């Protein structure tokens, strides 16, 4: 049982903490309880005092009446008269005993009903006055002046009253007061309950609607029942819900629009991709014709040059033979251009197979091939070893062939030529550089460098197709890298490129984020 009541207490405390309605109800009830208890106590106290006063004055009055009645009899010593008066008083309600004493305090007469043991009794004593003033004759309420004649008294009367009836009345009074209080309390509590409910119902509705709104139901509506602060709150809440609804709608429309735009964009991308694929196919077809249809007549030209030289070379003079050689050389140059075009195209088409590789080894291999081809050239190579980059081996080989080939070509006039390959790190990026002390070029024409068939030197000085750097740039850009050149005429050129690091790169991982 104690645990149960404890639990009950806890649950009440927690609901008091959680529920505004319970708190309000408890508050109002407590106020009513205090007020009605105070009211009942006050009422009861007043009634009690009234009863008490009434009993006192009744008792005193009775004693004094008797005292007056028996005055003459006591004075004259007429015993029968005394008993008669005493009997008359005994006949009054609640009178239990009547005693009359003389001046010396000796009992003259005593009449009494047998007293019960547990009953309560009150006694009232009055002096029997020897002198009677006028006032006393006229009015019985002369208590103020009573004491003045005290020494003139001829005796004393003593009346004992039974309190039981008065007590019964008091009990009845208490009962009535308690019952009234309880009734009032019940009514008050009921009223408090109604008040608490009517006050908290709009708040509860508001709370329920807010919860529903939180769960995504934006069709909630709080009924506005009053024009007070809570009513205003409900109105504001409703307009807020309306605003949310319209904003949600706007958002959905925007989303739909975005979705449609996305679809349109995808369609556009698809069309563009198709166009691009078509353009690519055309380019492929063009390259095919360039390398085949253009090459066939070129080969015929070469064939007839050979035939002419072999069959009629003897009959031509030196100048004729020179012309013939020039025709053949021109054909060969055109053949090289066609090859370069095809290479450019193949670079673009090649499926990349990137991996970590030692680019220093590639540089060594390319330079070795150049030395073998032209062993008479006096060129010094300084190559930094063990440089690892992430890239496609064949494409990088091709790029290096062109870059180093250029350096080799443009250092022709220098003796000795010097070509350096090294790596520098700037802002965490590994920059590969190839520096030569060759002819260099005017940086004003930098824009033309990477355009196919654009040449910055005379063919007679430095032969070439004009496609080399375009091929290199395409290779680097296919690696998502960057390439640039720095040059000064007569001093030399430095070609730099950066290749992005591979996925399994672990060197200086902290710098990659910077």
């Amino acid at each position, binding site marked *: 049982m104690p645990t149960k009541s404890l639990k009950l207490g806890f649950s009440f405390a927690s609901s008091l903490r959680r529920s505004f309605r319970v708190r309000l109800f408890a508050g109002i009830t407590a106020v009513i309880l205090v007020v009605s208890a105070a009211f009942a106590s006050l009422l009861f106290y007043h009634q009690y005092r009234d009863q008490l006063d009434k009993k006192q004055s009744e008792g005193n009055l009775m004693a004094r009446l008797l005292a007056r009645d028996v005055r003459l009899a006591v004075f004259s010593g007429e015993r029968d008269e005394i008993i008669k008066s005493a009997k008359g008083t005994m006949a009054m309600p609640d009178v239990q005993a009547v005693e009359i004493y003389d001046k010396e305090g000796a009992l003259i007469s005593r009449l009494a009903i047998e007293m019960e043991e547990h009953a309560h009794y009150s006694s009232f004593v009055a002096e029997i006055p020897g002198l009677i003033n006028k006032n006393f004759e006229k009015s019985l309420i002369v208590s103020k002046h009573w004491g003045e004649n005290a020494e003139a008294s001829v005796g004393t009367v003593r009346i004992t009253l039974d309190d039981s009836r008065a007590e019964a009345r008091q009990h009845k009074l208490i009962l009535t007061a308690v019952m009234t209080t309880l009734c009032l309390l019940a009514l008050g509590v009921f009223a408090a309950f109604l008040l608490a409910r009517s006050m908290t119902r709009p708040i509860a509705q508001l709370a329920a609607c807010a919860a529903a709104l939180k769960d995504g139901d934006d069709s909630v509506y709080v009924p506005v029942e009053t024009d007070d602060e809570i009513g205003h709150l409900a109105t504001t809440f409703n307009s807020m819900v309306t605003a949310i609804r319209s904003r949600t709608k706007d958002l959905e429309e925007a989303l739909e629009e975005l979705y449609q735009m996305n679809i349109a964009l995808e369609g556009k991308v698809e069309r563009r991709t198709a166009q691009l694929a078509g353009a690519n196919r055309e380019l492929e077809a063009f390259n*095919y014709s360039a*390398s*085949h249809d253009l*090459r*066939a007549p070129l*080969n*015929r030209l*070469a*064939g*007839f040059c*050979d*035939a002419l030289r072999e069959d009629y070379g003897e009959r031509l003079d030196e100048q004729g033979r020179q012309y013939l050689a020039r025709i053949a050389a021109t054909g060969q140059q055109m053949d090289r251009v066609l090859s370069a075009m095809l290479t450019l195209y193949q670079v673009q088409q090649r499926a990349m197979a990137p991996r970590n590789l030692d680019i220093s080894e590639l540089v060594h291999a390319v330079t070795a091939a150049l030395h073998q081809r032209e062993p008479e050239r006096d060129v010094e190579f300084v190559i930094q070893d063990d440089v690892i980059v992430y890239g496609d081996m064949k494409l990088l080989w091709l790029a290096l062939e062109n870059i180093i080939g250029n350096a080799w070509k443009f250092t022709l006039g220098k003796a000795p030529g010097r070509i350096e390959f090294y790596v520098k790190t700037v802002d965490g990026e590994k920059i590969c550089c190839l520096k030569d002390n060759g002819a260099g070029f005017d940086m004003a024409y930098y824009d033309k460098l990477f355009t196919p068939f654009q040449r910055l030197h005379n063919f007679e000085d430095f032969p070439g197709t004009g496609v080399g750097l375009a091929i290199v740039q395409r290779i680097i850009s296919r690696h998502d890298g960057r390439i640039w050149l720095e040059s000064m005429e007569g001093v030399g050129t430095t070609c730099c490129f950066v290749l992005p690091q591979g996925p399994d790169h672990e060197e200086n991982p902290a710098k990659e984020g910077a």
Partner: protein
Amino acid sequence: MESINILLVEDNEDDRFLTIRTLRKQPVQVNISIAKNGDEALKTLMAAENDLPDLVLLDLQLPKIGGTTLLAKIREKHDNNRLPILILTSSDNPADINICLQLGISGYLSKPLDAASLGNFLNRKAP
């Protein structure tokens, strides 16, 4: 020295002239028959069912029936042992060369035909 019978399939007159000129320069006696397109080549081969040429020189860039298609049709009847074929190309298109190698050829030479290369080949193949 025995003579070699060669069928040259070539549409371009200049190329025919240059190829024939180079063939004539070979130390061996060559008898050259000519087909200017795929149809002619098939007809010639059909007619010479019992007297096939020792070697076919085939240009891949032919009008109408292309070189690789013609090669495939020839290979339906005759394999490379019975009828050796040498491809003449203007450029090294790896795709076409691969198709030819799969169908069965004795080799390929780039134009203009180099007398020395052809001589090497004939010395190896000639009976």
